């Protein structure tokens, strides 16, 4: 921990106020409360920031970064701060000034012919939705479970959605980045002044840097190109409920070749029974005991709700003739492999609800009310090999650890082309100290046991950056050491998000962080 000396902080805040106006600088309790983790599994004040500054433009970001570099004041950039379950708006360490870019909320360009949009960090999925829908733009967006967050921030954290463009990080093309000395960099083809293909060709000339600015602290991304998919003529959904828990394995093995050959382009997500029940209401309506719900109670609740042990939809997007062929392929592949039938529904235009296109919603946050009281959640999300046996192993081991710690296993497997994102959530009541303690220690054990089995997380909560970074341990942590060499080179003062993803600048390493 390196505290910011009070006189240095005061000087920095005065400079920041000169840049953005005093109304857009906060300190003391206001800053700590505003940027605390709203879903914190431990005292949120223990990792709340010293202050915050909210610029309205890239010029202002540059000016702020220059001041920070000169004074050695660490900044913690956020886009909209809605990364719930992964820390929300909160930084990794308390002694930082939040660089809050929520006011930078312009959609800078939408190229309908080329199918991309260029956004600033403060643009939310809701903003983009209204922009596209209200203007009848024939492009579809992809969004994660709730739409309050930042399009740019979510892509940088490698969030996932449920359309064929649901692997958001892979649809990013061309960024503008403020580097740690306050200068401006454009990635990919944007490196050429006057380039016509900045948001069309993702690689540029020489090393490609877009991916290096994701889940990283090498710079501050102030604008980003994102590909959007053409509006499909039809979507066809094949929904399935698996009543037998062990049907997870065959379902995944059947799905794999369909994803590999492109029959299924979206990312089906096989969610478990708790995931279905938790969106409907609190657990107390089903059971009043403590610890995980007993199997017989859970099964009765499942049948009453009419949901499966696993529930998913395989949605096909595109031309109706092509969808019909692919639907036949999907049905034939599943036939006889699992004890369930598909329920088919189609969308052919009009109201977007039920189409597979995201609509503005915060319903997903409802799950934090599962145990009543002020709810919280911690998301443990290891990547699984795309194999029924491996997913089963991961599911049974992780579920067993959840239940041993007294929690219901809430989880699901979202299918990429060659991997599964196994996204699980520890739901807890923030007023229950014992439950919070168990949630924290369970999370640490999950990371350790995961690593012992060769399972790494695709993303993690800000509190656990270092533990997950240490689990990526090949050749004595060669990747972490490489990242820190880059960090020292591109941010010698160590002012941008120190400790993000376990990447510490030299002065923090020397201080023993």
């Amino acid at each position, binding site marked *: 921990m390196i505290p910011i000396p009070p006189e240095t902080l005061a000087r920095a805040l005065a400079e920041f106020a000169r840049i953005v106006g005093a109304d857009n600088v906060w300190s003391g309790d206001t800053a700590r409360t505003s940027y605390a983790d709203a879903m914190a599994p431990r005292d949120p004040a223990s990792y709340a920031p010293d202050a915050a500054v909210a610029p309205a433009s890239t010029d202002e970001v540059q000016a702020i970064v220059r001041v920070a570099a000169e004074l050695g004041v660490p900044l913690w950039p956020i886009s909209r*701060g809605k990364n719930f379950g992964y820390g929300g708006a909160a930084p990794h360490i308390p002694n930082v000034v939040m660089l809050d870019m929520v006011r930078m909320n*312009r959609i800078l360009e939408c190229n309908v012919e080329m199918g991309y949009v260029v956004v600033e960090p403060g643009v939310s999925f809701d903003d983009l939705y209204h922009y596209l829908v209200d203007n009848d733009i024939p492009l579809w967006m992809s969004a994660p479970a709730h739409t309050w967050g930042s399009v740019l921030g979510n892509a940088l954290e490698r969030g996932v959605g449920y359309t064929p463009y649901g692997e958001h990080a892979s649809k990013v093309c061309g960024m503008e980045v403020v580097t740690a000395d306050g200068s401006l960099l454009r990635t990919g083809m944007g490196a050429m002044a006057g380039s016509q293909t900045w948001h069309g060709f993702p690689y540029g000339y020489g090393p490609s840097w877009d991916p290096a600015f994701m889940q990283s602290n090498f710079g501050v991304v102030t604008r980003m190109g994102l590909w959007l998919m053409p509006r499909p003529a039809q979507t066809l959904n094949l929904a399935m409920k698996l009543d037998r828990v062990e049907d997870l394995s065959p379902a995944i093995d059947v799905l794999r070749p369909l994803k590999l050959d492109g029959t299924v382009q979206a990312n089906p997500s096989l969610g478990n029974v708790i995931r279905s029940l938790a969106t409907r209401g609190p657990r107390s309506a089903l059971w009043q005991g403590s610890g995980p719900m007993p199997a017989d109670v859970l099964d009765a609740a499942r049948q009453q709700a009419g949901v499966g042990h696993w529930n998913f939809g395989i949605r096909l997007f595109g031309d109706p003739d092509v969808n019909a062929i692919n639907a036949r392929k999907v049905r034939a592949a599943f036939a006889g492999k699992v004890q369930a039938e598909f329920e088919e529904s189609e969308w052919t235009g009009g109201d977007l609800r039920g189409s597979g296109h995201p609509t503005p*919603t915060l319903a997903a946050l409802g799950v934090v*009310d599962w145990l009543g009281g002020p709810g919280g959640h911690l998301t443990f999300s290891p990547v699984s090999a795309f194999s029924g046996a491996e997913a089963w192993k991961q599911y049974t081991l992780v579920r067993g650890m959840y239940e041993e710690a007294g929690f219901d296993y809430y989880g699901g497997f979202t299918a990429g082309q060659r991997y599964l994102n196994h996204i699980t959530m520890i739901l807890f009541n923030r007023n229950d100290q014992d439950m919070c303690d168990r949630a924290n220690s369970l999370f640490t054990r999950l990371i350790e046991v995961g690593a012992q089995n060769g399972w790494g997380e695709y993303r993690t909560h800000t509190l656990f950056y270092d533990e997950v970074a240490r689990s990526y341990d090949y050749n004595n942590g060669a990747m972490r050491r490489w990242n820190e060499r880059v960090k020292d080179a591109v941010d010698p003062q160590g002012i941008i998000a120190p400790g993000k993803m376990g990447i510490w600048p030299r002065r923090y390493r020397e201080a023993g962080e």
Partner: protein
Amino acid sequence: MRALVSLGLAASLALGAAAVAQDAPVPEPSDEALFVEKCGLCHLEGGFGTRVLSRRVPEGQALLQDREVLPAAFTTMVVRRGIGSMPQIRAAELGDAQLAAIARYLEAGQ
């Protein structure tokens, strides 16, 4: 030329977007419109907030607009600090003047 057309379209569309207000001054929305815009995702019919509140407040008052008593000071505190499962909303995303207008609207009751 085609690219220019596309960019021109983008510029004209941008004026209509909620996220952009660069040129023409935009009229101040009414307090009710502000409530719907800033709070409606959760606090209208069917929203997450409404559903949670329906389990915690007297019947028929889960919608904030239907509350018999909702002091502005309470709304202000809840928004800035969060409550229950509702995250706090900070000044950078909802300014003090806008929050005051929403709190006033809810206190007055409709």
